[in-house]
């Protein structure tokens, strides 16, 4: 195990997460950015052989885990920076208008120099120390070279973002981000074999400088000169054409080549309370725009389903994604459920939908989940969350984006919906799978709900209470929710709010009943 430690000397990091726009600050520093800082140190200090070997060895390692604290950002403001390409015209036309004078060359003076808008995004980490940790690697004979290179690193990001870097082999660094193959909350640019050669080639410094110097010498000989000078110019021009052809060589800025998903380290599987057939790591999407009331859940999840289907790279989408087998008939295995996350459980709660969650089946291969969902969640070029528009034409229009805040609101926090509890109360009504008749129809209905818990892998509850009003504050009355219609004959299915009381605490997400994959029957753990 070894790690590259970086300390931000100013207490902040100035680096842009969104490329040229420079409005969002990047934190933690992506591994590719750190590699480029090391490469810059190597290029600018004589390209020592040992250090170069250490860099090429570093390239071959897998993406590192990252130990970095949380951060805050500075308000994004626009600074105006004086330009340097003003010049004085050779002939000054007769004018006494100040703007014309500035164009003609007065703009060269500092007080009249024009300015260009620039952004300098700053992230202020809670702890200025960051570590890139390779748990499996041994630095071995490359330690000396890598250490020397790290000591030469001056900045990561903007040149004002001073750092001090070092190499350590002390084993006890708790990392906060690790590479994951599943659906990732965060994507970072990483380096891989060949990056150093790729950077050298793209920068192409030697050729560009040689061409520029030859051209400058040739241009200096323009105009009426002696015969010897004209011959010299001809010679230079022919050398230029011979070496470079008719086009000048270009120097390209580095482009991101590899992205890696990063997630929080997995907590060890505690042999604790049993859970449902759904993975408790819900994928939370935050809703923005006009307020959407909870009764429009079905329409919301339907619109979301449409967007998901469109964004799935595999067409037709797999069974766990769409809920249908290849033949078109509904699948019997558990599949992805779309759940509404409302603002409930509080004195001022109004039941508006704050976000949506995707609950994936526990048995799903994380690699496959990532493959199908990554393009929906994160943008391909910047790695930042992608914004989607959900609209129904009639009932709502809102924006949807992956929730990536450090401290999300309580109702968008996964723990609120999945923590272990004995008592669970519905926030959307539980749909009963058939009508019950007779004097004891409510008892029959309660029994059917107990069976429904079994369908999603939960133990049978001790007690189920059905009531048209939910126990959770802010949830609308059951009659305010539209009834689901049965696909087979179009008949309407009745529903009711419920309270489930289990013998032992169970972990969520708990969503029961016929509408459980579409948002009906979602339950919230109550304080016991």
């Amino acid at each position: 195990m070894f790690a590259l430690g970086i300390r931000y000397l100013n207490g902040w990091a100035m680096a842009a997460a969104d490329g040229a726009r420079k409005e969002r600050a990047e934190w933690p520093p992506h591994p590719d950015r750190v590699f480029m800082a090391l490469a810059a140190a190597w290029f600018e200090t004589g390209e020592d052989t040992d250090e170069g070997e250490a860099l090429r060895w570093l390239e071959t390692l897998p993406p590192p885990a990252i130990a970095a604290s949380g951060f805050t950002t500075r308000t994004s403001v626009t600074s105006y920076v004086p330009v340097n390409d003003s010049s004085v015209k050779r002939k000054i036309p007769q004018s006494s208008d100040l703007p014309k004078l500035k164009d003609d060359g007065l703009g060269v003076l500092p007080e009249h120099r024009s300015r260009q808008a620039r952004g300098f995004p700053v992230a202020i980490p809670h702890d200025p120390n960051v570590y890139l940790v390779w748990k499996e690697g041994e630095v071995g004979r490359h330690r000396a070279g890598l250490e020397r290179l790290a000591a030469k690193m001056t900045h990561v990001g903007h040149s004002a973002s001073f750092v001090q870097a070092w190499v350590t082999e002390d084993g006890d660094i708790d990392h906060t981000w690790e590479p994951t193959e599943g659906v990732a909350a965060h994507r970072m640019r990483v380096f891989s074999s060949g990056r150093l050669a790729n950077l050298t080639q793209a920068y192409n410094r030697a050729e560009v400088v040689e061409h520029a110097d030859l051209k400058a010498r040739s241009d200096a000989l323009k105009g009426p000169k002696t015969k010897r000078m004209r011959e010299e110019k001809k010679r230079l021009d022919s050398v230029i054409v011979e070496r470079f052809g008719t086009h000048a060589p270009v120097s390209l800025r580095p482009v991101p080549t590899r992205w890696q998903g990063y997630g929080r380290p997995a907590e060890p599987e505690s042999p604790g309370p049993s859970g449902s057939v759904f993975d408790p790591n819900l994928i939370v999407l935050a809703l923005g725009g006009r307020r959407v009331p909870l009764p429009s859940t079905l329409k919301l999840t339907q619109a979301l389903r449409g967007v998901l289907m469109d964004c799935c790279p595999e067409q037709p989408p797999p069974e766990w994604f769409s809920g249908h087998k290849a033949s078109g008939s509904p699948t019997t295995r558990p599949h992805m459920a779309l759940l509404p996350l409302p603002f409930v459980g509080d004195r001022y709660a109004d039941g508006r939908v704050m976000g949506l969650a995707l609950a994936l089946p526990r048995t799903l291969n994380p690699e496959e989940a990532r493959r199908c969902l990554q393009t929906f969640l994160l943008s391909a070029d910047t790695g930042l969350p992608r914004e989607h528009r959900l609209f129904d034409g009639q009932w709502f229009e809102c924006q949807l984006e992956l929730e990536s805040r450090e401290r999300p609101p309580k109702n968008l926090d996964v723990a609120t919906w999945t923590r272990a509890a004995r008592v669970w109360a519905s926030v959307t009504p539980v749909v009963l799978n058939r009508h019950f008749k007779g004097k004891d129809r409510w008892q029959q209905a309660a029994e059917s709900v107990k069976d429904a818990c079994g369908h999603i892998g939960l133990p049978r509850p001790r007690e189920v209470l059905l009531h048209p009003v939910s126990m959770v504050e802010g949830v609308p009355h059951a009659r305010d929710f539209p009834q689901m219609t049965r696909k087979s004959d179009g008949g309407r299915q009745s529903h009711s709010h419920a309270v489930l009381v289990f013998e032992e605490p169970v972990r969520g997400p708990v969503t029961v009943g016929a509408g459980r994959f579409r948002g009906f029957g979602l339950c919230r753990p109550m304080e016991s």
Partner: protein
Amino acid sequence: MRIDLQALQDAVGGTAAAFRSVTDYQPAGGPGDKVFPPTYEGGKYATEERIDPDTGKTRQCVLLDSVQSQANRMELALLEAQRAGKVSLPLLIARFDQEDLLKKPTVTSLEAPHRIADAIFRDSLLDGVKFPESEIGSLLHVADIRNATGLFGTCPTALVFGLWDSTGPRGGLGAKFQRAIVSEIVGYDAVSGIDTSSRIEPLGIELRAGPVYRTESGDWTLDPDKAEKVKDKPVLYRQGRPSEINHGNVTPDYAYVKGNNRQIEYERRIDERGNEVRVRPRIQGGFTISKATQTTVVSLSALRRLRFPLKGAADSKPDVDVAARTTLAALGLAAGALARNDGDLRSRCQLFATQAPVWELLDRPGETPKQFECDSETSLALLGEAIAEARAMGLPWEGEIALTPSPELVELVRRSQELASASTGEEA
């Protein structure tokens, strides 16, 4: 302990990453007085939240002086020290001292926005030759990290504050030196305040005294016959109010931030219905802070990248490199120390240091850094010693290099000065 040349040479020649100085300030009007940070487009202040490492609590902070602004102040402080004779730095000066100019400004390499690579020097002449083609000017075309000797002798501040000559023959790959000093002032526990604006007209001119008309020559008059006529109707001077010619009362009110159309700007947020609502009007009212902190870092690793070969040699000698880097480090420390003497940042933002400046030498992470005292006198003396040592090693160190602005530029300046003196009250 006080810093001396030996300690500085050891630091530069060793493994330490940087010198850092963190100084606390209070407003000159005493703790609890209001300070006015720089305002950005739209009347915004650059606010941020920081977490206190000891208590874990969030503190509201505001930027009182940015990195670029501090760099400008440091350069001006060095220029003042030069003019007072306390230091002797190589300096390019473009003098506008021609006979027919009303004012005779000068622009030095410490004032020009892009230092020695600035457009103003590009368009000036050195001994009759265009500056980029002169001996000193052409140093820029070949200057790079491995060969910084020429720049050291003609503009050492470019090696400390950074330089990029993107308009030379190599275009974007021209001489590029990163900065070695970063300084910033942040105010802590910032609580926003309210300011007011008003005016009492000393001459008692009221709105009814108008309307004011515009004459053909752009002046104002009250006589409609003397006014400029469009379709036989006299043209009003803007809106015709006496306030357009800077007379009349201004009703006392809060100092609202106003947009282009004189509408008040509001802080906005999205409410739960998804509508954008106004929260409160933006008032440029400054902040009350518990303290301001200035953090200055002089990066020694950045200086260690520079090489100084002498007399056209291919390689540089290590002791010459150390002498040059020590001079640059001393220049950085002097700039930081001088900037701490003047806490007058802008109108109603004067700060007063509450501690003597102390510089920490950041060496191995985890170890307690060594501390040095270095006020402005010590730093200037140190700089003088370092320069003497560098010159003894054979490094160049020019004096003041006088440039003549091109005749076309002088003509433009002359005309703009005529315009400025001829116009009377044209501004709003």
